[in-house]
């Protein structure tokens, strides 16, 4: 059974909602990413999105874009490096399901077949490709189905009658974009958000998770009532940005990790 499915099944039995943090791998460096992943697990994260840094992150706001720039400038992080971080985290004892978050071009350049061979062996359970709408995903989706790795699609408040078609193809969960716009912390969500979420809910039996702009315990609680999972990205990446100076010095590294751990714990009600 895919680990994402197993996790949602367990959470459902316990009556809990998944907390799914996002981090940009290689921000500030690859070894620290492994430690941040461990800290996230200790803090109670249920799954984790591993972001592949990209030069042109169209769906992301300034916070995640800056994290990408740091990762590319400091460590020239590649798709293969991100997958290696997943493998190392497993070796370090991390049990969380891993979801790869990558724009399409790094995967396309790696080659679809070698890419699937690589991730199947490294403990990746799912992937989110923000610039690969269902119209363009046939080849990759077929390979994902064959290898049992979930291709998790996004639906947006503007998806309208596309919601049904997208939800029908969803594996793992449906990623519901909470607001129009790029990733980033925000106070207001799309005005039709509640109706949108119930539309997605009624379109599928697959779990649904909400993301884009969620940054506080109150917001996590708000969406926990309507969704099976809540994704927090920019708020965590911004926290990491704040503690980068601590993470980069050996004597203060543990303090930096402790702050990240505390922030993630604080998101859970």
């Amino acid at each position, binding site marked *: 059974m895919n680990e994402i499915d197993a996790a949602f099944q367990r959470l459902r039995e316990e009556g809990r909602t998944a907390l799914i943090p996002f981090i940009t791998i290689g921000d500030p460096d690859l070894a620290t990413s492994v430690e941040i992943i461990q800290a996230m697990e200790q803090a109670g994260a249920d799954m984790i999105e591993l972001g592949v840094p990209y*030069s042109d992150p169209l769906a992301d706001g300034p916070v995640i*874009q800056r994290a990408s720039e740091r990762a590319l400038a400091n460590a020239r992080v590649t798709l293969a490096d991100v997958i290696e971080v997943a493998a190392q985290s497993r070796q370090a004892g991390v049990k969380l399901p891993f979801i790869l978050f990558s724009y399409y071009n790094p995967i396309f350049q790696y080659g679809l077949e070698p890419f699937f061979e690589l991730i199947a062996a490294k403990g990746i359970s799912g992937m989110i490709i923000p610039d690969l709408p269902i119209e363009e995903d046939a080849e990759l989706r077929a390979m994902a189905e064959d290898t049992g790795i979930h291709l998790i699609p996004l*639906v947006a408040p503007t998806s309208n009658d596309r919601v049904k078609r997208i939800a029908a193809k969803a594996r793992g969960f449906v990623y519901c974009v909470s607001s129009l716009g790029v990733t980033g912390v925000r106070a207001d969500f799309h005005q039709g958000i509640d109706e949108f979420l119930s539309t997605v809910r009624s379109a599928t039996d697959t779990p649904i998770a909400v993301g884009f702009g969620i940054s506080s315990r109150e917001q996590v609680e708000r969406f926990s009532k309507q969704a099976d999972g809540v994704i927090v990205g920019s708020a965590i990446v911004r926290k990491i940005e704040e503690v980068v100076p601590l993470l980069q010095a050996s004597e203060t590294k543990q303090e930096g990790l402790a702050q990240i751990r505390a922030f993630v714990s604080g998101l859970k009600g």
Partner: protein
Amino acid sequence: MTQVPDENGRFGKFGGRYVPETLMNALIELEEAYKHYSKDPEFIAEIHSLLTKYSGRPTSLYYAKRLTEHLGGAQIYLKREDLNHTGAHKINNAIGQGVLAKRMGKTKIIAETGAGQHGVASATVAALLGLECKVFMGEEDTKRQELNVFRMNLLGAEVVPVTSGTRTLKDACNETLRYWVSNVDDTYYILGSATGPHPYPMMVRDFQRIIGDETRQQIVKEAGRLPDYIIAAVGGGSNAIGMFYPFIEDESVKLIGVEAAGRGVETEEHAATMTKGRHGVFQGSLSYVLQDEHGQVLPAHSISAGLDYPGIGPEHSYLKDTERAAYVPITDAEALEALQLLSRTEGIIPALESAHAIAQVMKLAPTLGSDQIVVVNLSGRGDKDVQAIMGYLEGGL
């Protein structure tokens, strides 16, 4: 050749719609609106009227006698897109899309710009049609093209300097797409080149094909036959695809796209996407892209802010791989030399973009006989570039 793009916006393997889901409905709506209005006689008549009475079309096809004599060889004709209102071919597309935006009930338009010509064209059309306008421009380019920033402001548009990434056209495009994702309800994105997700490459080509359509009639009237060569500069490729498209079925007409080689294709400072790029997905479509082995998009360099772009329109990639068109690189230095030659022989100061096409003519024309005909698309005039040119001529490249 089969009709491209197909219903999924594919030119062979190229094109498509690689965008965040939030934009998909907007693109589908746009495609439907375009399909509907492009068959509407009133819509066509309104655009035609603006192109003739407002922009001054048809632009002339001019026999460049002194340049022909100087180079010795083929007869050289210039398609004078520089004579358009606002000084470049960009107005053709801006009028088309502006009228479409209005028909779709949008009140705000956004645009990206590199050299500023598309920004000025969009600001102009916004003023003309009574629409609000925001233009995204790389901070680097706002310095290189100060005069055009001033023009856009005069026309009532807001210029938003983009400080992310390379601070040039590539990042202006990213920022415009991002803004559109957030404001997709009331905002129309006038994309300026034959790039981006479907239906833009098709739509921009259709609005620019008037360049090739007029050229065809004009050259047949003037010379009694089709040309042997057609040459146009390519950054994103809108002037070139507009010029090439009506000739694609005419196998006797050789099509040459000229891209910016910057400081040389052997250096890392160039924008030679076709010469040095690989197939990749960038800014909404699959096309040739300048990128590293891991799929990170590389910064481009050109003396011309309009050619300084690491991607290219998907239809050009299709024409390259089917070998219907050839793409050649021209350096900054060659373009600058061509700019001076055209200025002195014909009294025409071309835009730096167009100077790249002229530089290719300087190489090609002398190798051909005087019975051969070469048509060059002079996509824009050089007024916007004179300050930059002055710097290059005094301070070197």
